[in-house]
């Protein structure tokens, strides 16, 4: 007996359906099938996850996925989702898993912050006619410079990397996403002169050619980590936490660990790839310092080391400690950040919004006069270029984009990444599905997205009368809050609109 009704209904317009069967052949969930008795294509809505693959490929627009109106009685306290989750756990006895970032209605502070523009007293700048700089450098900056008599710099400069745009691709490992998906991100990063992030799954040999644009991650499972791997990347990122699941590690199920994944991660085929919750060699800031300097040592102090932490309650102090431990870049991942698979309860209840975390960290590092010792990169639901501009004005040096890049490649946010049945060929290792993502097509879409955002960033900066992103960085006077409490404004370090 089924205790819960299907979440969606599949409406097939019979006047339009030509029974070509594209939907049936494309649905990995088998929500469509060809009835061999009648030759007609039919649907089984109980299997539908609303990924929209069939809708997008139907040559006659005959399909529509709608919310099932047949639901339990309205209850403001017991939402449909709350009831469904109890029913699911009663059936399985297991932890609920989810994909992507939290869909819950938490405040989105980006939408409660407004940008400034120049009027009369200071001129705005037209980016189509005048130069507009979005070049960004990540890494520690020297506190002072010493020169010899001929003007050569004597100070030993810390390693930095250069980006043409303040946007980078979030960490998404090969394993959690397909090689084709990661390759598309790598190709886009190369074309836009920015970086993609290997995630914790190692660098596949096919992506060696993009290593100049790779951030190589070292996570608690140490998958795929070797001296070669560390030296191939341009930035080394120690992953302490992830916004979608702060406090726990990842778990790549054995069925996704095929030959390619096993070779890249350096683990046996079909074995579960379990990242421990903590790094078992890091129980203190001093331990973190040891790892940071081990990594710097192995790369001869030529590459910046980043520390990625999830935005949690005490984030400012943790970030301060990490900078003092030697991190050149602090990555903060907000609680709305995505994941290929995460326990639902953690995703929906643990962590704090990235906007507040970013403001708190930037302020703390400035108060302690160590802000120049590191760059700040944020992640965790950066949805558009306005979010990027607001983040930079709040103090970020650059933003990671994860979900946005996946959406550019076809993701429709159905949030069932953990099933491994991604119909768009992104969050799957099934060769029948991964081939649906042709990197030659999809990398261009990611490039388009980055170019479009960069243009918009320039437009918004121009409107404020700013011609270089460096002048926007930490420039909180360009921001005003709307509908925020005194406390929220205080944490964000911005004034209310009208002030």
């Amino acid at each position: 007996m089924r205790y819960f009704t299907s979440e969606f209904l599949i409406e097939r317009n019979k006047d339009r359906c030509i029974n070509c069967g594209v939907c049936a052949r494309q649905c990995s969930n088998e929500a469509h099938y060809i009835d061999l008795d009648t030759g007609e294509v039919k649907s089984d809505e109980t299997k539908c996850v609303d990924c929209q693959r069939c809708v997008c490929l139907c040559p006659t627009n005959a399909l529509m996925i709608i919310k099932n109106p047949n639901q339990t009685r309205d209850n403001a306290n017991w939402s449909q989702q709350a009831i469904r989750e109890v029913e699911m756990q009663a059936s399985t006895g297991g932890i609920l898993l989810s994909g992507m970032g939290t869909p819950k209605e938490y405040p989105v502070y980006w939408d409660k912050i407004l940008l400034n523009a120049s009027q009369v007293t200071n001129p705005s700048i037209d980016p189509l006619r005048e130069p507009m700089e979005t070049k960004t450098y990540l890494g520690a900056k020297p506190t002072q410079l010493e020169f010899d008599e001929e003007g050569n710099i004597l100070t030993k400069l810390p390693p930095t990397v250069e980006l043409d745009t303040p946007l980078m691709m979030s960490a998404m490992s090969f394993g959690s996403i397909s090689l084709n998906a990661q390759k598309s991100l790598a190709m886009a990063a190369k074309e836009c002169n920015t970086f993609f992030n290997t995630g914790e799954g190692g660098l596949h040999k096919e992506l060696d050619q993009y290593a100049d644009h790779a951030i190589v991650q070292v996570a608690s499972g140490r998958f795929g980590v070797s001296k070669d791997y560390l030296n191939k990347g341009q930035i080394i990122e120690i992953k302490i936490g992830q916004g979608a699941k702060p406090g726990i590690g990842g778990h790549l199920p054995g069925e996704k660990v095929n030959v390619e994944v096993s070779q890249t991660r350096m683990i046996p085929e079909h074995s579960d790839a379990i990242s421990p919750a903590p790094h078992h060699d890091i129980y203190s800031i001093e331990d973190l310092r040891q790892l940071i300097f081990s990594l710097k040592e192995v790369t001869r102090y030529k590459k910046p080391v980043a520390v990625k932490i999830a935005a949690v309650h005490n984030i400012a102090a943790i970030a301060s400690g990490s900078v003092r431990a030697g991190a050149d870049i602090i990555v903060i991942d907000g609680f709305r950040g995505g994941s290929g698979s995460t326990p639902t309860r953690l995703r929906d209840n643990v962590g704090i919004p990235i906007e507040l975390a970013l403001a708190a960290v930037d302020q703390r590092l400035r108060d302690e006069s160590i802000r120049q010792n590191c760059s700040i990169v944020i992640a965790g639901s950066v949805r558009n270029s306005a979010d990027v501009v607001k983040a930079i004005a709040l103090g970020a040096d650059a933003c990671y984009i994860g979900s946005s890049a996946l959406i550019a490649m076809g993701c429709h946010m159905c949030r069932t990444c953990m099933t491994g049945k991604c119909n768009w060929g992104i969050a799957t290792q099934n060769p029948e599905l991964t081939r649906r993502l042709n990197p030659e097509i999809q990398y261009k879409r990611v490039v388009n997205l980055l170019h479009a955002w960069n243009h918009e960033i320039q437009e918004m900066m121009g409107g404020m009368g700013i011609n270089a992103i460096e002048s926007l960085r930490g420039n909180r006077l360009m921001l005003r809050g709307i509908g925020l409490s005194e406390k929220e404004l205080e944490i964000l370090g911005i004034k209310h609109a009208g002030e």
Partner: protein
Amino acid sequence: MKKVYAIEELCLNCRLCEVYCKTAHSKSKNVVKAYKFESPEPVARIMVEGDNAHSIAMQCRHCADPACVNACITGAMQKDPVTGIVAPDPNKCVGCMTCLGACPYGVIKVNHIAMKCDLCRETGEPACVKNCPNNALIYVEEEELQ
């Protein structure tokens, strides 16, 4: 000459090429009408062989020395000396199916008369290539194939 080439690794077995080929060779050029209302029903000249695990689209190779042209008993099947396109003259074809048997690729269909890929010579852009969602079909000169 430019030909349509199929890339097996990229073929999704969605068979949209068949849908759009059939539509391109219909009177109405409308997908729903082509499938539901036209008589005689138009015929897709491209066929996807295989399943979701392995599939590839097959259509006429427009051979340099076409077996179908050599086999044709009425002289209907001809290779255009300028474009290289192999196509039957519907006024001469008697539907004897000799070409169908002679074709080494099995890409000729007969529905009263012979039906086969004509590289969408009316529009100059093969509908299968234009509508493939994964660029698994490409329309290039043989030398460009690499």
